[in-house]
């Protein structure tokens, strides 16, 4: 097990170098001089261009800049934005918000998705089963920005149940609406997975045995059926959590959640190259780590799964 984790972490190293290199080269090698963007329609004097290129190390050759950047990153310094803010501070500020949003979304998925999936699975082919299938299909087929705008318009502006955007400090109550929108996206998978898993588990001998020894439905369903159906669902949720914490850019933008995705969106709009590269790099690392964690989780949930050397 330990050897497996070490091996996976080692595999993460080339992923890290590869992705930083690709992102770095994509952002820095796009044609044109970022200094000119700072002046809008005005044309800066050559002295100004030269001074700013030097200030932001834009005059060094590409590889020099890449290695300078790598050196900084390995020392834990993610650089500064053009506005002079430390990217470390930005991430320290925005990550907790995104994490809370992702957590809330996963909890909503878990509670609603598993409940609906369980009932559908137990009453296979019934009205509830068919309606839930239809509704989840409808939601999953909608692009996220449509879902977000519609939810914001109906529940935020027309009905006034929630604030249309997230306020200062991102209180939990403001995060509910964006979390529901985010949860909606993966909900269909959770429902279907739970449903299929419940149907499969229900046909097992140990379930018939449990009923046979006179246990009530109230005991058999949660303890014998649900518990054994949760393995695929949990791993799916974990994977989704990974996707959510590396940025629900669109949803965060629409609801103005002060999270990582939002920050990245603003940085791209501003053309703040150091910030873009650093944030994306961190997101790549987080994603790699989350995936390793999921793989380890399989073994914990189901002892039959063994990792070979």
């Amino acid at each position, binding site marked *: 097990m330990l050897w497996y984790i070490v091996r996976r972490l080692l595999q993460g190293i080339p992923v890290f170098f590869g992705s930083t290199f690709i992102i770095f080269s994509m952002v820095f090698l796009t044609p044109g001089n970022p200094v000119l963007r700072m002046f809008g329609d*005005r044309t800066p004097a050559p002295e100004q261009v030269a001074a700013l290129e030097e200030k932001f190390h834009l005059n060094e050759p590409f590889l020099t800049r890449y290695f300078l950047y790598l050196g900084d990153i390995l020392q834990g310094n993610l650089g500064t934005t053009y506005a002079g803010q430390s990217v470390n501070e930005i991430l320290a500020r925005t990550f907790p918000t995104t994490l809370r949003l992702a957590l809330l979304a996963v909890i909503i998925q878990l509670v609603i998705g598993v409940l609906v999936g369980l009932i559908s699975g137990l009453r296979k082919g019934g009205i509830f089963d068919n309606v839930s299938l239809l509704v989840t299909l409808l939601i999953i087929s909608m692009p996220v920005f449509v879902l977000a705008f519609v939810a914001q318009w109906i529940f935020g502006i027309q009905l006034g149940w929630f604030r249309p955007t997230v306020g200062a400090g991102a209180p939990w109550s403001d995060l509910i609406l964006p979390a529901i929108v985010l949860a909606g996206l993966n909900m269909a998978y959770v429902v279907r997975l739970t449903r299929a898993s419940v149907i499969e588990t229900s046909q097992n001998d140990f379930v018939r045995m449990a009923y046979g020894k006179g246990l009530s439905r109230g005991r058999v369903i949660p303890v014998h059926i649900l518990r054994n159906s949760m393995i695929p669902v949990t791993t799916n949720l974990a994977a989704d959590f990974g996707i959510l914490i590396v940025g629900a850019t669109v949803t965060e933008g629409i609801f103005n959640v002060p999270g990582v995705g939002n920050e990245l969106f603003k940085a791209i709009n501003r053309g703040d190259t150091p910030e873009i590269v650093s944030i994306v790099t961190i997101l790549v690392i987080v994603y790699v780590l989350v995936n390793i964690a999921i793989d380890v989780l399989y073994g914990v949930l189901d002892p039959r799964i063994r990792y070979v050397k």
Partner: protein
Amino acid sequence: MRISRIAAAAGGVVIAAALVLSGCASDSGDTGGGSASTGVVNVAWGEPENPLIPANTNEVNGGQVLNNMFAGLVYYKADGSWDYDAAESIESDDYITWTVKLKADQTFSDGTPVTSDSFVKAWQWAASNPDLLNQWWFIDAIAFKGGTYDGGENTLDLTVVDDTTFTVVLDQPRADFPVALGYTVFFPLPDSFFDDPDAFGDAPIGNGPYKLSDEGWVHGESLSLVPNDGYTGPRKAQNGGLNFKVYATQDAAYADLLSDNVDVIDTVPTNALATFKDDLGDRAVEQASAVFQSFTMNYNLEHFGDNEEGKLRRAAISHAIDRAEITDVIFQGTRTPAEDFTSPVIAGFDPASIEGSDVMKYDPAMAKDLWAQADAISPWSGTFQLAYNADGGHQEWVDATVNSIKNSLGIDAVGLPYPDFKGLRTEVNDRTIKAAFRTGWQFDFPSQANILGALYVTGSGSNDADYSNENFDKLFREGLAAPTQEEQSKIFNEAQGQLFTDLPAIPLWYGAVTAGYSTLVDNVEYGWDSWPILYNVTKSE
């Protein structure tokens, strides 16, 4: 120039004067006079692109905050006229040497006095280094004696006479010098700035109507200001403070406006343009702004050189564009066709009086005729290309414009997209672009001299066409030295006559501000620069 929120996006939308009035009308008419309200006004905002240092702030978000935290020598009223703020008088006999007198007993919000030194040191510092984004002001926008791009310490010819008097020496006579002094770069700085500019950029200390609140600037979320009781100037705060809220998108800000979670926005998102007047009613604002849109052909572009053929072809292109229909259809009537090289909100606007201004009229027959005359000199071949940046929402009007040219002249004309703004500007800057390209200007200060000087004077920084005309340069210099705005405009409009003959750029249309405010606030007015005049907004608690 001020860079708008999305630097590359074209300005806004313009409409008739009637709507300007309705947009400015407020529910209650109690401005000023001790009836100050106590509510905190929430303002839609974006994270500034640079530290909050006057010499380094050239975009709208940082600019709005600094404008409310600092008092320059002069300030601008909504209509673009100016009046004294920190200065008592700014006078000159020869328009070269200016004497500035400050009002007595002014202080910064940290209690230190505002003296001549506060201005002189700030200006010397701003002119000292080419990596400061506003350094160009002392060289290109207003030629100060001693200002160069090489910078260096104390290069400007500024002399402190006493605590409230200092003199400024310019490079050439400039009668409209005081008009420019309301811009951010001319704000004074307290001594504490020079100890630690970085800390200052995070928590500036000013002498204006507001100061930073205790919460101050929460990066990524908000920046809040409270009234500065020490400020005694004409822009006294009429509300309990300003809370600038960061929005990633204009859509999010607009959604909050509809539910009164934000009080003032300065841009309506494009997808709400069709409905915002219904959504907001009286609270919808649409008024002309000081934005000029055009496209430019450098004189090195084949067939558009500095000769008879080039002149004919430029005039033909101008006649070939149906500006009225494009502003109507593409911009839903929210922009107005350009009639000159300045802006209708800037004093002196009078295109009808200028000889040759009918070159702006849509006249396909005339266009064809001029094009044929040019063909007789040197036959046309190839395709007319109009370059634009694809990240700025320009494709629609570019396509409409080239179609208009194509249909009028019977030649091939296409839009030439560049992936992003910096890509386009780099080729323009290097003079390697082989096409016409979109250009625009947002006025830095309300004077025709700003745009004419920056874009068309020989050798000036933003003269992307490399236009050079002795007559225009001479008239421009004369205009600068004219003692009154009326006399100046008369000469500038004569100079514009030369531009109509040569067409270094093809004017397209004027921009506008489309904005709105919540049900909780009153007395919301937008200035000539498209910014809401925040210190006048009232809000009850």
